[in-house]
């Protein structure tokens, strides 16, 4: 699977078509269509409850009932279990960060198993997030919100997965931390990672994203590139209500 990283920029890594998903009885996604190309940062925008997080979770295989088609590196993963999806090279950083309280920072950092070679070394991770080195022996949930977010991102960088899904990485964080996370995403992008981002913070998203998709009522209703951003500003205000 090393060829995944070596794919030329521009090749489609993830393609989602007519994705529908349910939480128990409630039908959340009604036909999501989008794709992500190698080396891109793609952002899903939309209001609260539009289905952005559910889309990420469906790609990750966490949502129990899902139909349609999700293809990753040409492989159909629509029905795959989430542990298998992770082993194919998709890493997920959840909105609630998912830091484990019963594990210390070191254990949290080392928890996700290496799924392939090419992940960041611990030294590279500490270079990105120097705070973590100081806090290795602290209990995971004793960290500040910003440090927890850094830990949540850091631990998936070790695994060798080259496709990252980050769910609202800036939520509830101070501007200076948001800036640091922005630098990190830019740095990861320059190193060839492909990133699918969910954001409410449009201002932040516009500093890192190549392309946007607008999600509303469980559907993708629009999409455009960062270069077309200014031409689409009015529409965007309507979509997001900002």
């Amino acid at each position, binding site marked *: 699977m090393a060829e995944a990283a070596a794919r030329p920029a521009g090749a489609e890594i993830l393609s989602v078509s007519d994705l529908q998903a349910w939480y128990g009885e409630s039908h959340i996604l009604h036909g999501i269509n989008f794709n992500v190309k190698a080396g891109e940062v793609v952002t899903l925008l939309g209001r609260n409850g539009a289905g952005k997080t559910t889309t990420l979770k469906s790609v990750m*295989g966490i949502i129990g009932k899902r139909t349609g088609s999700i293809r990753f590196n040409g492989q159909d993963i629509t029905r795959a279990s989430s542990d298998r999806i992770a082993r194919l090279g998709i890493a997920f950083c959840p909105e609630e960060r998912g830091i484990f309280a*019963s*594990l210390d920072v070191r254990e949290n950092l080392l928890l996700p198993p290496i799924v392939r070679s090419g992940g960041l070394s611990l030294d590279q991770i500490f270079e990105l997030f120097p705070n973590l080195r100081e806090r290795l022996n602290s209990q995971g949930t004793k960290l500040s919100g910003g440090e927890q977010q850094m830990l949540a991102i850091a631990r998936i960088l070790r695994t060798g997965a080259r496709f990252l899904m980050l769910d609202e990485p800036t939520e509830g964080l101070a501007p200076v931390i948001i800036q640091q996370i922005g630098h990190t995403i830019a740095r990861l992008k320059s190193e060839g990672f492909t990133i699918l981002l969910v954001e409410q913070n449009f201002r932040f998203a516009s500093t890192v994203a190549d392309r946007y998709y607008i999600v509303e009522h469980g559907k993708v209703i629009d999409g455009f590139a960062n270069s077309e951003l200014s031409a689409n500003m009015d529409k965007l205000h309507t979509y997001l209500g900002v």
Partner: protein
Amino acid sequence: MQALYAQLLVGLINGSFYALLSLGLAVIFGMLNIINFAHGALYMMGAFCAYFLLHLTGIGYWWALIIAPIVVGIFGMILERTMLQWLAGLDHLYGLLLTFGIALIVQGVFQNYFGSSGLPYAIPDYPEIGGFRGLQGGMNLGFMFLPVYRGWVVVFSLVVCIATWFLIEKTRLGAYLRAATENPTLVRAFGINVPRMITLTYGLGVGLAALAGVLSAPINQVRPLMGADLIIVVFAVVVIGGMGSIMGSIITGFALGVIEGLTKYFYPEASNTVVFVLMVLVLLVKPTGLTGRAA
């Protein structure tokens, strides 16, 4: 004084079984969220497994210590795969009722063939080291006479308990376990096969029960209801110690065994109820148990 030490020793022995059994219950509860009422029946199966090994194949105690936990552990894993896994996400009550039913069936089957009386299982008489024949006989410690087998049970149980604690609290595998106890969905999304880990965890907890069964065979004889009698006390131990904590269940297990032993010496009439009195007190004062997390 001799009698006091003797009761202390009995207390430590019982404490060993309480600790091994409540440890397994704690591990199973943490991962599967199931209150494993079949634990006593599986403990009994461990003892019977040792008995069968000896009388059907001639395989003795030392091998039984290894083989019985594996055999019963596999039996447990089959139970988990075929029945318990379907209860994931449901209320505790369903798991409790299902495992209680399994316990009744297993005990009923054994009672059907072996009645209620005990089958003898001898203390191993090999290997011969110095003046000792296996674990038979005893030694005079000056202040008391210590039967070798009983000393062995206490020391070996302690070692197994601490090894289990180390495995769960200090190793990478244990970190997976603790993480999956908190958030199995996310651990699975990191690429770990959580359902398989749950099955193995149940096997581990059940294996500990079977190991306790083998240890107990030479002391208490092998009886179909040996686990049914013990498990009620063990559940009281678990309630007192708290369900979630590994070290908590080990310490509470040994401590309550000793308290029971001391009660036997100072006020024998209360020795069978002291654990339950403590349970009521703990439930009134700290319902999550002395070391437990909220369930």
